[in-house]
């Protein structure tokens, strides 16, 4: 009884000391970025050649982040990142897969008006992370140390 | 499989013939009972004591402006029987009074308070019908009614 009492006090101490020497989990974000998965839902990117202007994306969008605008007699989606909830329905229900979700998630802007992406801006793929950033791949999980990230 | 549900419906119909407007088995494990509001407390107590409906699941108000009435739906689950009963009763829109079921199921306390706040249905006998989810100084009426005017965001 007394023995188990003492064990229950000392064992956590030992376990905590053991964890001091395990790998860290934190990713130092601005210097290192995580590689996102293939399906990652960042900002949608438009393929102008495929878009038929049907407006399904605007219909399905729960937050009215997508509105249809006219560009040279054609209708194209305009995207407002400030309203987007990143559900990905626009890309999923797109009839011609003209809209695709892209992994780019660094969407913050100083000016609110920059958050609105007219079709010509929506076409551009978000640039990859700057040079100084190192992309950390999802490391193989090692069963002994429990590391998942760098 | 569906025997327990039918038994519940039959018992209710026989015991409260006049006050049960409609009772039917919606599907497996779901029973819908529409009752008159005058005997709501008695029927609820009968459900709890004789039919073992002991676990309150939800209380929802529904607004039907064209019929000029509110529908209040008590969903009660029975842990031993594993059946959910929807106990419905209608309340006139111009005189929305209903006796509270807090003496039967204590769990309806906050549900009724919320329903009062959102629909303006007054539950007689409820100990504390005061502002709960909305701000203390809310004065724009009852937001979940259908005639509540939504304020749209200024563009």
């Amino acid at each position, binding site marked *: 009884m007394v023995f188990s009492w003492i064990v229950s006090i000392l064992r*956590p101490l030992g376990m905590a000391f053991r964890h001091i020497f395990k790998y860290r989990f934190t990713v130092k974000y601005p210097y290192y970025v995580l590689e996102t998965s293939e*399906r990652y839902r960042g900002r949608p990117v438009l393929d102008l050649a495929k878009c038929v202007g049907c407006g399904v994306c605007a219909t399905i969008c729960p937050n009215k982040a997508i509105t249809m605008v006219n560009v040279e007699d054609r209708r194209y989606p305009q995207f407002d990142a400030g309203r987007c909830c990143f559900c990905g329905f626009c890309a999923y229900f797109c009839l011609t897969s003209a809209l695709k979700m892209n992994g780019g998630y660094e969407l913050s802007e100083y000016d609110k008006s920059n958050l609105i992406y007219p079709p010509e801006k929506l076409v551009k793929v978000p640039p990859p992370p700057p040079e100084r950033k190192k992309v950390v791949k999802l490391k193989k999980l090692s069963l002994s140390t429990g590391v998942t990230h760098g | 499989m569906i025997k327990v549900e039918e038994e519940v419906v039959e018992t209710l119909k026989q015991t409260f013939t006049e006050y049960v407007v409609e009772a039917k088995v919606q599907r497996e494990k779901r029973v819908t009972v529409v009752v008159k509001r005058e005997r709501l407390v008695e029927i609820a107590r009968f459900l709890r004591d004789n039919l073992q409906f002991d676990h309150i699941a*939800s209380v929802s108000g529904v607004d039907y402006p064209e019929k000029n009435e509110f529908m209040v739906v008590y969903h009660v689950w029975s842990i031993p029987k594993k059946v959910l009963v929807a106990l419905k009763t209608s309340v006139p829109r111009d005189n929305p009074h209903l006796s509270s079921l807090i003496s039967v199921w204590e769990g309806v306390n906050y549900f009724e308070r919320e329903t009062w706040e959102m629909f303006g249905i007054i539950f007689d006998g409820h100990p504390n019908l005061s502002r709960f989810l909305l701000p203390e100084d809310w004065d724009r009426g009852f937001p979940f009614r259908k005639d509540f005017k939504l304020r749209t965001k200024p563009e």
Partner: protein
Amino acid sequence: MSIMRVRWGPQHPVSGQWAFWLDVDGDIVVNMEPDIGYTHRGIEKVAENRTYIQNVPVVERTSVFDAGNIVFGYVQAVEELMGIEIPERAKYIRTIVGEMSRIVSHLYGLGLLAIAVGFETMLMWFINDRELFLDLFEMLTGARITYSFFIPGGVLHDLPQGFYDEAMRRLDYFERRLKDYWKMFFLNRTFITRTRGVGVLKREDAIRLGVVGPNLRASGVEADVRKDEPYAAYDQIDFIIPTEKEGDAYARGGVRFHELEQSVSIIRQALKKIPDGKIRVKVPITPTPPKGEAYSRVETARGEIGYYIISDGSNRPYRVKISAPSFRNLLAMPFLSRNVPMADIPTIYLSLDLIPLDVDR
């Protein structure tokens, strides 16, 4: 004797986005009143103004900690209204996502319970391993927290390449860690002293107050929607419902912990049994279910959630009532915090796993 009225929150380290009014006599709380509504978004009203599929991300915001199971109920209610049966494979994928979501949510909830007694290590370790499943979610759905993955008719995506191996490896690791956790936290004498006998909820009180989920099961009631009314693929999977008799904070934590073990086993079985086939039946973009109503129950991490949806035949629901688990557990909070030391208030609050988002909706 003089009673001091202390306002606990919303600017308080552990209160969350709500407040309690505590009447304190010395160090003993004699009465407690919740003051909620700081995050009231009127989701039920919002849902009346959107189409059935647009509502999926909206109802998910009820409680983002357990996004999978929260949407599960809504989607099932809509399917019941429309009278569609989803393919077997979709059912299994839903089960996997639901259980992973339960693990994620329980890890967070247990971590918060540890925070209530001042045990940051437990929170950090749990958050750490939560990441294992967030990565899997990212792989499967494309989002880490709010993965609007279920839509009426099925699920959005099929399991990706290599998901089985990755998931199995992570589950192996996680299962080993769970044993460590049991030793480190639940057999830790200080943690036991702090949570045993705190906030004892007896069986009859739990039923009377309408408490749901792990809190109800910790009081000795074996009630779980997954067994009572099996949805998705739960009727084809072998698992048990952990229960405890004591009904105190430790028992509530223990039930959650054992549910983690069960969830791991459920995911394993589902991944092994999953049949081939379609993952979605065709449903129009704006579905219009016939007139009627449906009440669907789903066991989320915090307990049973009920969606009562009334359809009037148009493309928007006439009424959506969300009977959220934390709102139902909330009634136990004032009941338990009478004549307890002030130091037990956070333990009671977080052992019930109340989430203000979920309470307010």
